[in-house]
């Protein structure tokens, strides 16, 4: 769920843009360096960005009976790494604002911080930690995707609570209010996204191992191919 255009007061919108900017600039520099060293990787990055966009448009079933869309940040972070996802995520969010009217330009900084920074770093951190502790690939992928989804929406709740604190109990009360409303849909959705991401990674291992190897998903010792 993106924060809609115009929802945040101007100071908050500007502040979140400033907070997200270093991560996005870092991602942009990483991409520029990568493209300079290997011009062909530009095409791969374009494919990765388009994949991230389309992934967030897939419909997954929710236990509330309706269907919803995955954030895709967990899978994106595992496949493409958080710095690259900071840039690709911001590009995707800009496209979603201008092609779907989801999110917005004034709220781009806040949405980028939750979906392109906090979500991917949470996913990547959890994935690496689980693998380092000897956890299986499926367990790591499930926890990474589910917790990234929850971290994204928890951050959104905090952003909204800071903008609109409760009259009686302040920011903490507002976090409880916004968090409770989003939790109804987001906790089941996080579980759904975790399960879906496990299935996707298993499928990709069967049909796209060369691409995953090129992306470095299974290269490092901490995330070896070994299935527990």
């Amino acid at each position: 769920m993106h924060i809609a255009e115009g929802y945040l007061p101007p100071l908050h919108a500007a502040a979140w843009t400033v907070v997200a900017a270093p991560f996005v600039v870092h991602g942009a520099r990483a991409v520029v360096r990568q493209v300079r060293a290997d011009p062909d990787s530009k095409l791969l990055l374009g494919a990765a960005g388009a994949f991230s966009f389309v992934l967030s448009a897939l419909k997954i079933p929710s236990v509330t009976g309706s269907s919803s869309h995955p954030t895709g940040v967990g899978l994106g972070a595992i496949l493409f790494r958080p710095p690259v996802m900071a840039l690709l995520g911001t590009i995707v969010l800009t496209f979603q604002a201008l092609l779907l009217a989801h999110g917005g330009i004034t709220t781009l900084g806040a949405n980028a911080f939750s979906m392109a920074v906090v979500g991917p770093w949470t996913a990547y951190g959890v994935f690496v930690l689980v693998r380092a502790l000897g956890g299986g690939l499926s367990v790591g992928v499930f926890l990474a995707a589910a917790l990234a989804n929850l971290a994204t929406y928890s951050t959104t709740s905090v952003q909204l609570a800071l903008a609109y604190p409760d009259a009686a109990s302040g920011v903490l009360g507002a976090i409880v209010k916004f968090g409770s409303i989003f939790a109804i849909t987001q906790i089941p959705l996080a579980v759904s996204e975790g399960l879906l991401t496990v299935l996707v990674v298993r499928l990709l291992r069967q049909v796209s191992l060369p691409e995953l190897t090129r992306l470095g998903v299974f290269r490092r010792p901490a995330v070896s191919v070994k299935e527990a």
Partner: protein
Amino acid sequence: MQSLDTLAHTNPWRRRHPAEKAVLAFGLLGCAVALPPWPGALLVGAVALAALLGPVGLVPAALWRAMRAPLVFVAVGSLPLLVAVGGDPLVRFAPEGLGPAAGLAGRAVAALLCLILFAVTTPLSDTLPRLERVGVPPAVVEVAALVYRLLFLLLATASTVREAQARRLGFRTWATTYRCVAAQAGAIFVGAFDRARRLEQGLALRGYTGSLRVQVPSRPVSPAFLACSVGLVGAVVGCATVLG
């Protein structure tokens, strides 16, 4: 999504320079966000709506389709302002929140109309190549342009795969639905990288040097349109100041 992009390619302002439309839409957007909701949001919303339904020629049904999903967020996001937490009882209706909730919803709707005003008049294919001129690194612009070009192909792939799965009764249970959605994601991944590889090979055969620059049609900026836009934004600010 394709309807917004299609509208952007077919509307009467299609041939105008993106900067002209950006000044109008983002000028109004700035007013919607910075001015007090009453009367700022009302004025901005009215101007943006008049522009969309008037010179831009957007039909109300298309506008409603574009606004439906963001309006759900605005509605859900405004509800917490009507509830107070803490004290006795712990959770209660807060009538004092009605004003702020209405102001917030009004501001968000006005801002959304401004965003749609830019989105349905300016194709991304016009905006992206010009981003280099405002300091965005060429590599980032080219990656964004590639994303734009590939995503329509991938969305079509996803739609075709989904239709084929539905015809094979792939969505009859939860388990089969999850398998089908995972297969869609897998097909999109494979398709995306296959496209990238084919692009790579095609460009290599054409002497690819690392630059994906495209010819950008020259479109002069209309001083009259710019002056009208600045005047309109100034009038909105003036009216809001007087009425507020």
